[in-house]
């Protein structure tokens, strides 16, 4: 899906921030949001890291942006919990309003509906039997893919030609893993693109490397 999370190359965000010394969590709620989300991902919601990223990508752009990084984590945690039937939609806001003294009825807890999912191993790296389809130095082109569901093919490298710069260990495929349709491990390649291939003849000169799953690629003719 083309989501708010797919930000590469988009305009309108203003200048980058000058780095400063900062603590990991600017305010206590950010640490609480972080911990709740990490524990929600697998243990509480029965989902996984890719499902978390897909939850981030499904947020309304306002919910993605308005309260920053740990705000979007909080919203994605809530989405995962409602997806798994742990919380009813609106339960968090209702409780927060009750805490403010408002006369609000909290929705009842739903029937849990965790996905039928169990990882075959820890982490995201897996073995695959078949050989990599591409070798370092091969010319490849990203396919014209526009899935409704999750993908790790950034929009700005879609339908572009590049060169394989490294072969990485095979990974579970987030496109299916995020939605509990199987791990489908694939070879992963780092592909280098000339900046002019991405941004036209007047682009700043540089090389962009991005890690891409085998099913996103075809041999460049």
């Amino acid at each position: 899906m083309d989501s708010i999370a797919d930000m590469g190359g988009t305009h309108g965000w203003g200048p980058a921030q000058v780095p400063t010394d900062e603590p990991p969590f600017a305010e206590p709620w950010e640490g609480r949001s972080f911990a709740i989300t990490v524990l929600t991902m697998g243990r509480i919601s029965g989902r996984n890291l890719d499902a978390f990223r897909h939850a981030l990508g499904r947020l309304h752009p306002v919910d993605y942006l308005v309260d920053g990084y740990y705000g979007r984590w909080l919203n994605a945690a809530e989405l995962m919990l409602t997806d798994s039937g742990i919380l009813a939609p609106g339960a968090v806001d209702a409780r927060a309003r009750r805490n403010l003294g408002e006369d609000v009825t909290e929705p009842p807890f739903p029937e849990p509906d965790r996905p039928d999912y169990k990882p075959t191993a820890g982490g995201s790296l897996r073995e695959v039997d078949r050989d990599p389809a591409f070798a370092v130095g091969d010319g490849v082109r990203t396919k014209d893919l526009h899935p409704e569901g999750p993908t790790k093919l950034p929009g700005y490298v879609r339908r572009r030609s590049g060169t394989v710069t490294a072969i990485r260990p095979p990974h579970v495929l987030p496109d299916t893993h995020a939605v509990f349709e199987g791990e489908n491990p694939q070879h992963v390649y780092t592909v280098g693109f000339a900046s002019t291939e991405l941004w036209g003849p007047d682009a700043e000169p540089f090389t962009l490397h991005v890690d891409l799953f085998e099913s996103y690629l075809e041999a460049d003719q």
Partner: protein
Amino acid sequence: MSAAPADRLSPVLRTEALEQLLVERELIDPAVMDTFIKTYEQDVGPLNGAKVVARAWTDPEYRAWLLRDGTAAIRDMGFGGPQGEHMVVLEQTDEVHHVVVCTLCSCYPWPVLGLPPSWYKDPAYRAGMVRTPRRVLREMGLDVPEGKNIQVWDSSSEVRYLVLPRRPAGTEDLDAEALAALVTRDAMVGVAEVAAP
């Protein structure tokens, strides 16, 4: 969610409410939450990466190993865990400048750098670094000399990248511990150089 900004509850209130709902149903233990928070506030941070860099600067064999098999060489220093499953180390040279970004989320090598800083998570960085890296680096305070070859790495898989900065001149007499104190988080992402002491 998705309420108009004027009607929105603050994330402080919403985080508190969510924690209450999960604690009441015994789905989460606040003490476990505290442990997670403390780990990333106190134990896992850029000092880990700085130790890796300082060892690479002082031990040529380690440096070669780190560039060949970052995961194993970093694990040898005792650093591993979530968001560090497969580590690749990129060496800055006089000719090449590497810089790391994650356009799709804010993926970052937690075991060696801790949790990402605000500038790394900022849309301006995520959007701009893959399009106008020289301009973005300049906005952040780093002027990359004209003609230097810029390589941008978008962390779109579970591979995590760590930049091995150039060792500053005039540090020949420093040991690994003193060198580690010079190495910054920003240099290990590629948005700064390590300054001489």
